[in-house]
């Protein structure tokens, strides 16, 4: 690894112009929409817009749902990643495919699938409802479930990748020295993949925060209960564009901050 870096240093020249132009165009794809947003931002009304009921309610639902989804993803996703990375079993590639499916599936399809499975008349939802009276759609829990569905793959693939790149000899050494399997996991494996785990958690959280399609399809849209920031933006676009832009700006600032901080603190360690 190190050798490669030095050799490429030696061959360091000015990057080809064509490459720079294409890279700039690539960057423009991301930057231009943001400029559009900034151009339409009603800066003067921003404080009033951002402290309105709708915004605060949506912010609360979004924070609860995204943190909830991240917590569930951590509890279930890390073991899943470990199994995928460390246990050989038939059909592992199929399982891996299933896990990353939500990354490429249109979220609205995910939402519909969740409704057919966990809705009041769903495959699992119906018996669940009869047994416990629990109804997931149109509840904040429904928002958490939808966000978990779309966001957990980010955690699983990040952690699985880290586990597969981990030098198994460290764990082997710890085991040789008498550490039990749980101790190895807690004291050696998890700390070693710490940066990846943190990056995975942050990505999961960011994806959960931005989730829209599965949420509106599965959990509906009600201010204070299921209306997250993205849903509030969607609804406001048709009635109060200033509020929609203000809300969008909040999302951009939050997400960008998280990603930039992440980049600085963890990604370089991977």
């Amino acid at each position, binding site marked *: 690894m190190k050798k490669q870096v030095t050799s490429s240093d030696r061959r360091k020249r000015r990057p080809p112009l064509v490459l720079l132009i294409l890279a700039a165009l690539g960057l423009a794809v991301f930057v231009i929409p943001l400029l559009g947003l900034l151009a339409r931002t009603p800066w003067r009304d921003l404080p009033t817009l951002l402290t309105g009921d709708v915004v605060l309610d949506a912010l609360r639902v979004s924070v609860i749902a995204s943190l909830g989804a991240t917590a569930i993803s951590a509890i279930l996703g890390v073991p899943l990643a470990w199994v995928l990375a460390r246990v050989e079993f038939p059909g592992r590639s199929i399982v891996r495919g299933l896990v990353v499916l939500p990354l490429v599936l249109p979220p609205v399809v995910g939402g519909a699938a969740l*409704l*057919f499975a966990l*809705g*009041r*008349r769903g495959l699992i939802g119906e018996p669940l409802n009869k047994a416990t009276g629990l*109804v997931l*759609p*149109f509840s904040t829990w429904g928002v958490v479930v939808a966000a978990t569905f779309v966001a957990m793959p980010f955690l699983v693939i990040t952690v699985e990748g880290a586990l597969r790149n981990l030098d198994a000899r460290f764990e082997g050494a710890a085991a040789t020295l008498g550490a039990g399997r749980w101790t190895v996991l807690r004291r050696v494996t998890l700390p070693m993949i710490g940066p990846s785990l943190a990056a995975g958690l942050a990505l999961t959280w960011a994806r959960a925060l931005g989730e829209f399609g599965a949420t*509106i*399809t599965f959990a*509906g*849209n*009600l*201010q204070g*209960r*299921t*209306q997250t920031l993205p849903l509030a933006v*969607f*609804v406001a*676009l*048709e*009635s109060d*564009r200033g509020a929609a832009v203000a809300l969008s700006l909040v999302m951009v600032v939050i997400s960008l901050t998280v990603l930039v901080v992440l980049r600085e603190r963890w990604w370089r360690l991977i």
Partner: protein
Amino acid sequence: MGLATGALLLAACGTTGSGADGEVLVSAAASLTDAFSEMEAAFEAVNPETDVLLNSGGSSALREQILAGAPADVFASANMSNMDQVVAAGEVEGEPTIFARNRLDIAVPSGNPGGVTGLADFARDELLIGLCAEDIPCGDYGRQVLEKAHVIPAVDTDEPNVRALLSKIEAGELDAGIVYVTDVASTDGGVGGVRIPDDENVLADYPIASLANAPNADGAAAFVAFVLSDAGRSILADHGFALP
């Protein structure tokens, strides 16, 4: 068969004064989805050089698209206020024409599990109740109806358009919602309708217009003329719309 098609072709050509070609982008209210799909097929049958692209959505979303410069040719709204805003922005060619009317109905899943018998049930907290979002026509009309009946609804979701609401009712995930009569008819028994009495109901006016910046002005004019023709009116009537 051939004769009948020929006759229809002739009749329709007479009414549309066609000669239009190319793509015609029609932005139509979600509640028009079924009627306008059929309208599209019928229009293309008599104007084989045209290709109608139907852009369905909540009228307010369609309005925003048009005001933001979307290259639509025709706008058909489920209420006057969205059309009025497009007119006020100078985006409409000529005057909008009201081409259909609709009424509201309570939609319930087949079997009516919530035992909904009228608007008063919308106040029952234990039921899962859906309305259209306040800012789209069916949400506005729905709230007008509830207000007339002096019912404060225990709403569980504000759906972004009437089709989204209908599909959640049809799936049995909601116990009741307020939609258009034509929506209930469109599901062929998939949802049940509970009548809203005339004195509590509202009449929804549907205006249509060619757009001032239509990329295909001839196509737009031909499509609007077709909707207003006898052929168009009979399609609308088939889908349960009242005709002005």
